[in-house]
């Protein structure tokens, strides 16, 4: 088992890690860089659309802020890691302080939250898919 893991580590090209990072940073880019146009557009389009719709619907992004203490800070960690999966769109929102305000009075608030969380999680899936293709584990 250990030998197999070592062999897989050794056979993973450095390019695959770069593709993985690109796929996380910009949804769809990992596949586009490997000339998987159809996959890249479908995955990237779905994740981008979901993220933008989440913001339009009034959903809010999670982050650990200085005001959260103890367990409250920990409770933010899980949804924040889901949001963080969206890559640069999340970082852009974080830098511009966009989407972090709670609009709980809006009817579509919960839908927006769900769209934003799932956009990040789906991008993690897309990132792993791009990594596997670059590493030659998947066609």
């Amino acid at each position: 088992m250990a030998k197999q893991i070592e062999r897989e580590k050794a056979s993973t090209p450095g390019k695959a890690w770069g593709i993985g990072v690109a796929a996380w940073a910009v949804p769809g880019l990992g596949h586009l860089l490997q000339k998987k146009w159809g996959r890249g557009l479908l995955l990237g389009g779905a994740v981008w659309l979901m993220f933008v719709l989440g913001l339009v619907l009034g959903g809010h992004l999670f982050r650990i802020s200085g005001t959260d203490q103890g367990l409250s800070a920990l409770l933010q960690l899980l949804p924040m890691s889901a949001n963080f999966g969206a890559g640069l769109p999340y970082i852009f929102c974080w830098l511009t302080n966009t989407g972090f305000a709670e609009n709980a009075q809006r009817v579509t608030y919960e839908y927006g939250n769900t769209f934003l969380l799932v956009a990040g999680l789906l991008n993690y899936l897309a990132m792993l898919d791009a990594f596997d293709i670059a590493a030659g584990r998947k066609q």
Partner: protein
Amino acid sequence: MRHLLWMVIFAGLTAVVFGVVAKGTDRHRLIYGLKVLGEFLVVAFILGWILYFLPFR
């Protein structure tokens, strides 16, 4: 109606990603994506009707 629309959009986008990252031929992945979409919608309708009869208010 708006809730249904957002639910269908959510299910559709999620099904697209699930279908694209699935293994197999294009045909298999298309069928898998449609199956995921159908499952999302059916489960949402069933849960919606169950919650409708539960006295939460």
